[in-house]
């Protein structure tokens, strides 16, 4: 008799386990299905990283717009009247590094703009042009230098051997 009862209990346990297993399988399958078909899962590590970065940057963006020591952090452009107009119109094709490298007077900056309009698809800047040219000529004006400048920024070091 005790033998029979044991057998019966074992069978019950087996059925119980089987049911649990089936339920677990169904739940897992359901989630797997969702993950594979319903979510547009990024296809590789690079895109996962890109998505995360894009999200992080979206949150960090306002900070990027800060001005520190007279420099607009995101672009490296000098703070000054017309900065917003320059950011809006001059950083769409190339980075602002191309601007901050260059020096010219009003005529020179105007010539560069005309060249980009004639050959590089830059749009008509309308009334913004004057604001932009004034900003550039004021903040990125030519410095006086001779036919050959002295050597500068030398980092002295002991020559070995």
């Amino acid at each position, binding site marked *: 008799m005790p033998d029979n009862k044991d057998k019966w209990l074992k069978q019950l346990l087996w059925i119980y386990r089987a049911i649990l297993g089936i339920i677990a399988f169904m739940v897992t399958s359901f989630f797997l299905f969702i993950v594979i078909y319903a979510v547009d899962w*990024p*296809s*590789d590590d*690079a*895109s996962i990283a*890109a*998505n995360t*970065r*894009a999200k992080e*940057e*979206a949150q960090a*963006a*306002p900070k*990027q*717009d800060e001005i520190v020591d007279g420099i*607009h952090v*995101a*672009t490296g*452009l000098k703070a000054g009247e017309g900065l*917003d*107009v320059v*950011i*809006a*119109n001059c*950083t*769409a*094709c*190339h*980075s*602002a*590094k*191309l601007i901050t*490298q*260059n020096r*010219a007077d009003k005529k*020179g900056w105007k*010539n*560069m703009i005309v*060249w980009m309009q004639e*050959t*590089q*698809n830059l*749009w*008509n*800047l*309308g009334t*913004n042009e004057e604001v932009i040219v004034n900003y550039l000529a004021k903040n990125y004006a*030519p410095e006086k*230098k*001779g*036919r*050959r*400048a002295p*050597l500068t920024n*030398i*980092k*002295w*070091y*002991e*020559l070995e051997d």
Partner: protein
Amino acid sequence: MDKKTSRRKFLQNSSLAAIGTFIGAPIVYGKNMPNGYIPVAVAEEIDPFQQFGLHPDMKVLNDRPWNIESAAHLLDDPITPADKFFIRNNGIMPEDIDVSQWTLTIDGESASQSKTYTLRDLKDKFRHHTYQLALECGGNGRSEFNPPAKGNQWSVGAIACAQWTGVRLKDILNDVGVKNDAVYVGFYGADKHLSGNPNKPAISRGVPMWKAMQDETIVAFQMNGKDIPLTHGHPLRLVVGGFPASASGKWLTRLSIRNKVHDGPKMEAPSYRVPCKPVAPGEKVADEDMCIIESMPVKSLITYPKTGAMLSKGKKLSIRGHAWAGENKVTEVQYSVDFGSTWKQCKLEAPVNRHSWQRFSADISLPATGYYEVWARAKDDQGRMQPMVLPGWNPKGYLNNACHRIAVKVK
């Protein structure tokens, strides 16, 4: 969405207002701006040093498009390795390159037929040649000009001399057939214009027929024995030693045999042109008075030691570097340690082949303690020598071959 472009694409498809929200400031000044532009001043989110495997001393001049320069002391290797090779991009590099699908088409008014080769065809059909070729950006040294010249402000590092392997351009041209009226060969590449306009090439320059037919002008698929790195034109690039490096089209897809001087973007004035006759600094020059640069001028660079060396009195200073002269050969290199008053000869090696740079070296004794500058100047086989001050001013600041100087102290 795919890879790093996802964010750019997202922004490209958004309205100005949405972009404004994204960057945390409304775009109130973009009223003349057409749709599809992203006025966000956030650089491409990749670290060029990691992505392109660059030496940490390389200097980024521009991050969109990539313009990255080397430095004199980085260029000491006889053959410039990829991590020290300057990058001059004019547009957006191609992505997702499928080498098995890559083709090169030859066409143009002066081509006997239009013909397309796969990369495999090119490698199988024509003999391979390897040359060491000096490529220097026409604007190398621009930063020194006064009044300032427009463009990327290169210092001395936009020069490299790698070993290129490929097939001769003339072998391909002869296989296609060249008509008698051929004047120029123009190139087209897979890079895109910065404005995003797919029908506008970023750059399409070329070379006159005599240069296209030179033995050393090659369509290359290898740099320093390996596949060409992406930044240098993977998988196929025109390599034209001795000419401004902009003639060596990267990501090459098409060559046009023209019956006139090629008229692609950046062939026109003022790009890669200098005044036909000398002008005063700052003078305005009419487009028709600007001539296309062909051979680069004679020049040299002291690659060892790095500027700033301090040594103790009585010690010999060994210097070395490279000299090159475009279409010509360097016949002499001299150095001066007294600001150009007296000059002494350097030892000079022959080039490994035409258009390669040449090694020079010298052992110098410095007489007393103090501050010295070592200047080097090369002379070509036409008797032309590097000037000690800047050469003739030109509106775009090309061809600065003023002698290189390093600072040295004896203690």
